């Protein structure tokens, strides 16, 4: 390589945006603090300023931030910070309009409206932050709406965990659809992260509350109603996964089996299965299959997260299975030593294990 080539390569690398998680973290923190401050200012409701003046000032501020966002689109982190500020101001504007016109309604209605009107700017985000906050808010307000609406809640009463199951599957489908439409875009990655977070919460919820769900035998005709939306989303997910042209058959199989393993424990209350081992097995199997898939595509952070989940679940299983402080203590010491030994071995032989998993996953 000549000196000119080296200089040209260095110049090119220097011009590319550098990922700085520290900068990104501080910008996000600053934006969150500013947003909370703005909402607090709106909530103070100064009656010295007329409602019309407040609205005009608000729309002017919103327009200025929007204009700045458009003009800073060449700077990734500044752009996303301004975009997040814009989306936050949109939420504050909804609150201000409610206040000026004394609008009734629930918080979830405001959040759902916010999700709808900020969907277009969210699709322009260059990092995962704004889309991740957006999808968490959108899904959270959907769950809130379900619980608050007496008619809809009656459909899932005594089968509340199915709400978490369906929410996870909606997030998963959103990530699959985003991947088909835009490849591995920030929105795809954010929706995937949201699906992982939702999956962890859902599995935790079903393990803790699953045995307490009461679906009476006399309500046999109604038993399947809470599951229908989740089953429908699961079918859509399987179709979406199967249509990913870049996935090998073994990868499609791993994801589909992970889907089935995830859904299974939510049906245990209807089948009167209460054994914690059954729930634990499904959680561990789901995490293992996702870990295997992540290993095949090089998604290291998610792979490590799944391994951590498996380890934590085994530790909890000891508590549940052994009982008594002494036996639990022995079990935990042994488990801890096993986890440490596994971690050391993994670190020492990770390349060989990576290659082994990859060979298996790629058939």
């Amino acid at each position, binding site marked *: 390589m000549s000196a000119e080539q080296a200089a040209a390569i260095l110049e090119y690398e220097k011009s590319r945006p550098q990922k700085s998680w520290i900068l990104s973290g501080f910008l996000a923190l600053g934006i969150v603090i500013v947003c909370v401050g703005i909402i607090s200012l709106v909530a103070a*409701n100064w*009656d010295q300023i007329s409602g019309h003046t407040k609205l005009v000032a608000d729309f002017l501020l919103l327009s200025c931030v929007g204009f700045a966002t*458009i003009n800073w*689109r060449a700077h990734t982190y500044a752009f996303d910070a301004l975009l997040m500020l814009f989306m936050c101001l949109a*939420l504050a*504007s909804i609150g201000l309009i409610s*206040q000026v016109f004394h609008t009734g309604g629930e918080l979830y209605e*405001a959040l759902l409206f916010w999700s709808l009107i900020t969907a277009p700017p969210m699709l322009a985000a260059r990092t995962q932050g704004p889309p991740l906050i957006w999808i968490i808010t959108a899904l959270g307000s959907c769950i809130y709406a379900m619980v608050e609406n007496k*008619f809809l809640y009656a459909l899932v009463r005594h089968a509340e965990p199915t709400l978490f199951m369906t929410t996870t599957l909606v997030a998963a489908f959103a990530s699959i659809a985003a991947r088909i439409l835009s490849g591995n875009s920030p929105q795809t990655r954010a929706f995937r992260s949201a699906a992982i977070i939702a999956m962890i919460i859902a599995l935790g919820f079903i393990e803790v509350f699953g045995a307490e769900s009461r679906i009476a035998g006399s309500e046999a005709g109604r038993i399947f109603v809470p599951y229908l939306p989740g089953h429908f989303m699961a079918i859509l997910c399987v179709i979406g996964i199967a249509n990913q042209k870049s996935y090998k058959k073994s990868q499609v199989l791993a994801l589909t089996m992970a889907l089935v393993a995830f859904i299974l424990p939510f049906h245990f209350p209807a089948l009167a299965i209460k054994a914690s081992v059954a729930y634990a097995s499904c959680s561990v199997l789901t995490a293992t299959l996702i870990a295997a898939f992540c290993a095949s595509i090089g998604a290291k952070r998610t792979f490590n997260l799944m391994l951590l989940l498996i380890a934590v679940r085994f530790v909890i299983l000891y508590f549940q299975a052994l009982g008594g402080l002494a036996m639990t203590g022995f079990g935990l010491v042994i488990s801890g030593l096993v986890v440490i030994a596994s971690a050391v071995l993994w670190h020492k032989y990770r390349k060989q294990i990576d290659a082994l998993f990859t060979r298996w996953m790629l058939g």
Partner: protein
Amino acid sequence: MKLSNSDKETPAVIYGKNSLIIAITTTILALVGLAATKGYRLKSGKEVELTITGYDPRDLLSGHYLTFRVVYDVADVCSENSSKSDLSAHICLSPRFFSWSAPDTNCKLFITGKCNYGRFVAGIERFYVPEGKAKFLEKQLRDNPASIIIKVTPDGKGQIEDLRIKGRSWKTLDVTDEP
């Protein structure tokens, strides 16, 4: 180790300047439209005064507000289906009567709402007040006759315009006013 080309990062769904302008403008226009709709109701609706009774919780998003029950002076409001919720219903304000279906031409002005467990709710049961006056106004509502001035559109949508206590607008009350 990355073995699949498909996990290579790609740009955002919306990337071009024009698309970004459309995305930002859509959000702003949606909010302006919402405010304009509410403002139009206030301008075009017919004014009605309704008696109220009240108490005060906190709204996380919009600040202090008073919620109250509106007294319509109509018999048997939502009484038939008092165990159900989210049932569409109407109250005719001139003359005063309750109806599950949209009132006919005999009714000059009506308000649309929902029956929730025997209670009629029309979206006019909340009034936002400044932070420092919420407790004072709550006490005023408990100790004095109060009413709201609303504007009602021809399609039955109501919008609060003012809160009155003992016949006076709340804005004219001083925090030191005694009941």
